[in-house]
């Protein structure tokens, strides 16, 4: 078989364990290695490294030594583009560039070859960051995350700019949450366990299906309307406290694009978020892995791919390590069906 992408995981998958203080950054890195969920390792900067992005040389050395000991390969440092961090105004373009530059420098120091950035950055911001990326030899991947899609006008504008610059340093990080095929069964299970009425759960599912038929929202106004629709449904059905949560889960995590759309940008992709919400009978019911792997294999994708378990938000009953193991096994199978052997060793 032809060598395929590099298997890996993001520690974000284990956030529930980290927040519950059942695991530390160090213990998570070691357990990922012991369970062979790598070799690719992705870490979120702000929420994983105390003091990020201003890290002492001693702390950087400690982290690099730890990763080296495990044999894991740093693939992506997830940065935040917090344009709305001030309450009085948004960051100016120069402030946003400075905010990102510090994180890119930290990623370089920690040994990561790529930084995941977010859509709050404009094509001009990305072009302004290019000299920093080139100087540090760190690629930047703009995450394509629901509610956005590969064909969203904002993403198309980024793609056209990256193609024009042809730098080899500006690209995308596809997130499979942008191309879901159903509402995750584990999310509906959570609401059942909380005692939410079945007719309301069915109404939510039907609303999501109606949005799915219409396709991804193409403007902020479209997205705001869908977000508001779920909040309205929560209020009308006696669950006002659930409104924003439902809107976030059903518009911000379960996106409506077609997996075929990834083909338009895979020439600018070096790292991917294989977002998923749960494994049932050996496969992922909300992200169509057979379809997704077909697209990635047919386009000869050989970059890294992090299994990103996001079901932790609502699933308190399953083991996230077992979820990731199941997800990676399913991906290896679907890639093998396309004649590709996922790389699990260096």
């Amino acid at each position: 078989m032809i060598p395929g992408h590099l298997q890996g995981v993001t520690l974000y998958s284990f956030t529930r364990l980290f927040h519950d203080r059942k695991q530390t950054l160090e213990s998570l890195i070691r357990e990922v290695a012991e369970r062979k969920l790598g070799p690719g390792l992705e870490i979120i900067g702000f929420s994983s490294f105390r003091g990020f992005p201003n890290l002492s040389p001693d702390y950087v050395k400690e982290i690099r030594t730890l990763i080296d000991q495990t044999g894991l390969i740093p693939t992506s440092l997830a940065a935040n583009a917090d344009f709305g961090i001030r309450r009085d105004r948004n960051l100016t373009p120069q402030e946003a560039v400075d905010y990102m530059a510090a994180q890119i420098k930290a990623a370089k120091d920690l040994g990561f070859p790529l930084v995941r950035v977010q859509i709050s950055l404009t094509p001009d911001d990305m072009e302004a960051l290019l000299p920093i990326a080139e100087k540090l030899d760190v690629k930047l991947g703009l995450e394509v995350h629901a509610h956005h899609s590969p064909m969203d006008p904002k993403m198309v504008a980024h793609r056209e700019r990256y193609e024009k610059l042809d730098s080899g340093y500006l690209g995308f990080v596809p997130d499979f949450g942008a191309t879901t095929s159903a509402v995750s069964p584990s999310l509906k299970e959570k609401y059942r366990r909380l005692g939410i009425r079945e007719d309301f759960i069915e109404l939510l599912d039907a609303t999501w299906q109606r949005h799915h038929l219409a396709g991804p929202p193409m403007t902020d106004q479209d997205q705001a309307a869908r977000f508001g629709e779920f909040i309205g449904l929560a209020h009308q059905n006696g669950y006002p406290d659930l409104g924003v949560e439902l809107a976030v889960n059903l518009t911000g995590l379960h996106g409506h694009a077609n997996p075929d759309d990834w083909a338009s940008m895979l020439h600018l992709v070096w790292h991917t978020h294989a977002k998923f919400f749960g494994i049932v009978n050996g496969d992922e019911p909300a992200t169509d892995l057979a379809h997704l792997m077909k697209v990635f294999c047919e386009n000869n994708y050989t970059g890294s791919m992090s299994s990103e378990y996001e079901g932790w938000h609502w699933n308190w009953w399953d083991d996230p390590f077992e979820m990731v193991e199941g997800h990676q096994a399913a991906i290896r199978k679907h890639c093998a069906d396309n004649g590709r052997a996922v790389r699990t060793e260096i």
Partner: protein
Amino acid sequence: MSSVEDMEIQLDGHSVEPDSITWTVEGRTYTRAELTGSWQQWWFPTDTAYMTGDLPAGYTPGETAEVTIRLGVYIPYINAGAGILKIVEKDSKSLPVRSEN
């Protein structure tokens, strides 16, 4: 820290005076107004944050109260279509009343 706002504390449904509420992380205490401007200070996710406020009238140490806290938390990198996304976190626990003074 500037992403935290709308701090509310209730005891058995009685609101704690909003202006008396403070927020303490890593040994530093913030008023509500101070949190708003503290966009270069960070709350590391595994650090405990302590909220304090004046006890509503009628409670004495030793009693048990149903304590509800509510926090509005901005997600500063997400434009929800109509502005920065803000989620509301809420939790309740039965806790003993005790005096700090």
